[in-house]
């Protein structure tokens, strides 16, 4: 399933119902005015919708995505102070140095904490409940990602491994944590 199909499915479920309701209200009352079920307060249902989809510049850290495409995870490293950055960034703002070098991450670490998201954001409604964890890698940096494990097998402090995976149903490349 691609993003278009997912969107269409969501559209059918949510937006279409609202649009039908607006048409219905206009037909009955001459204006898009409804009564809130609990309070009976009259509400004007906005006829102008706003869909927001950002385009986010990634040029300065493009290497990260090239490596990810090859199944590798990298951080960036400042050649002067040695700080490893994850999420990757190309500027060491404390040394005022740009064009940092890349380091491949060991992916080995321990789970610092986790949560299971059962009430999901609108744009994540099409996933099963998911676990988000933060792991501290051997390099001393933290990575936040989904933990692909049965909740029963998860404990704070357990050894975890970071790996590159395909996120379904969209089919795009990302990374996740698993029990090591």
């Amino acid at each position, binding site marked *: 399933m691609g993003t278009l199909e997912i969107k269409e499915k969501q559209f059918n479920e949510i937006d279409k119902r609202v649009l039908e309701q607006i048409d219905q209200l206009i037909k009955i009352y001459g204006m898009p005015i409804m009564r809130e079920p609990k309070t009976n307060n009259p509400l004007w249902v906005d006829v102008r919708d706003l869909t927001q989809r950002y385009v986010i510049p990634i040029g300065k850290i493009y290497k990260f995505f090239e490596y990810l495409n090859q199944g590798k995870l990298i951080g960036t490293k400042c050649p002067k102070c040695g700080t490893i950055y994850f999420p990757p960034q190309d500027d060491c703002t404390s040394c005022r140095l740009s064009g940092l070098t890349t380091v491949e991450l060991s992916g080995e670490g321990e789970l610092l904490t986790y949560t299971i998201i*059962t009430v999901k954001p609108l744009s994540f409604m099409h996933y099963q409940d998911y676990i988000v964890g933060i792991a501290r890698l051997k390099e001393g940096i933290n990575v*936040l990602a989904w933990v692909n494990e049965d909740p029963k097998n998860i404990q704070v402090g357990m050894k975890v491994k970071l790996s590159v995976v395909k996120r379904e149903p969209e089919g795009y490349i990302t990374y996740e944590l698993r029990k090591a």
Partner: protein
Amino acid sequence: MSNVAIVGTGHTKFGVRTDVNLQELTWEAVKQALEEANLEQKDIEMFVVGNAGGWSSEPLSAIAIGEYCNLAPKGTMRVEAACATGSAAIRIAYQAIKSGEAKVALVIGVEQMNQSPHPVAVEMMGRAGNYFWEFENFGLTFPGYYALYATRRMAKYGMKEEDLGSVAVKNHYYGSYNPYATFQKQIKMEDYLKSRVVAYPLKLYDACPITDGAAALILASEEVARKITDSPVWIVSQGFASGTINLSKREEFLTIDASRVATEEAYKRAKIDFSDAWRYFDVADVHDCFTIAEIMAYEDLGFAKRGEGHLMARNGETYIGGKIPVNVDGGLKAKGHPIGATGVSMAVSITRQLLYRAHKGTQADIRNGMGITHNVGGTGHYAYITIYSTRKPNA
């Protein structure tokens, strides 16, 4: 440098306020504050609007409010510091008066979150971390961010589910006495334990509701305050700080670092000793967007030792009559958390407490005449600590 006094307060009923629009809701609080201070709009030199925005339809909320409340053409701006927006608004007015730039300033905090459908509201709050690295791919929610702190504390300090529950039970207890609160209903521990999980280990009863509401404060210089009131409440000091946008860049997930830094700044200015800070205050309002946040606040304010905040909750030490009463207005948990209004609402609660004007059943004993508010934005992204007193600070 002038001392800064609170000379008027206003507060609306919090909850689902779809009976009014954003401007009308704001007016309820502004009108109350003007009446309390016995001032007119022409006496207000500037107004600051704390409104995180996005939930409601007016993008230029400060201007919409200025027109409706008859405050134009006075200068204004909308300020944003996530859930600490209200305190950020106070800061602007506080500094304007302290510096002598203004003599009378109006602070407004307002949010009408119920203009958006709930799933959209959940989405927007989830986006309030590092958008690209933490939301885009991993879909964190606001309870999710705080749940990461709760899980860690359970593993490291042995905090129990019931400890979180005791915060919820306390805040609902006091909420039941606050006519402005969203939830005016007490809950039992068993109700808490049965409530549905929203982001493990946090449950629905760990979380504050999606809320509409407004609050207002009128601040004045010492010279003006003396003319209009016999009972000003002074802002003694304020500390503020920020944290990393990426939660993954935090160290331990046991405390909110920004809140600790802001506290130290506020205490230093007010000459308060961190280790026995609770002795100075009669009452505190802390940021309990989730029960775990209140527990961390006890430690970040120095009321409990590191790793013992949940014991303070367990032992009921933050009820009236305990070590220090906390969130006896119901807190964000029961009173509600209209994002931009919360910081201002906290200031209103503490001001009224210090003047013995709290609602029946919620009045703390006022001995030192001092109170404190702890307002965190995002998940420790912003922190504002403000100290109030009935005694004039040494200028």
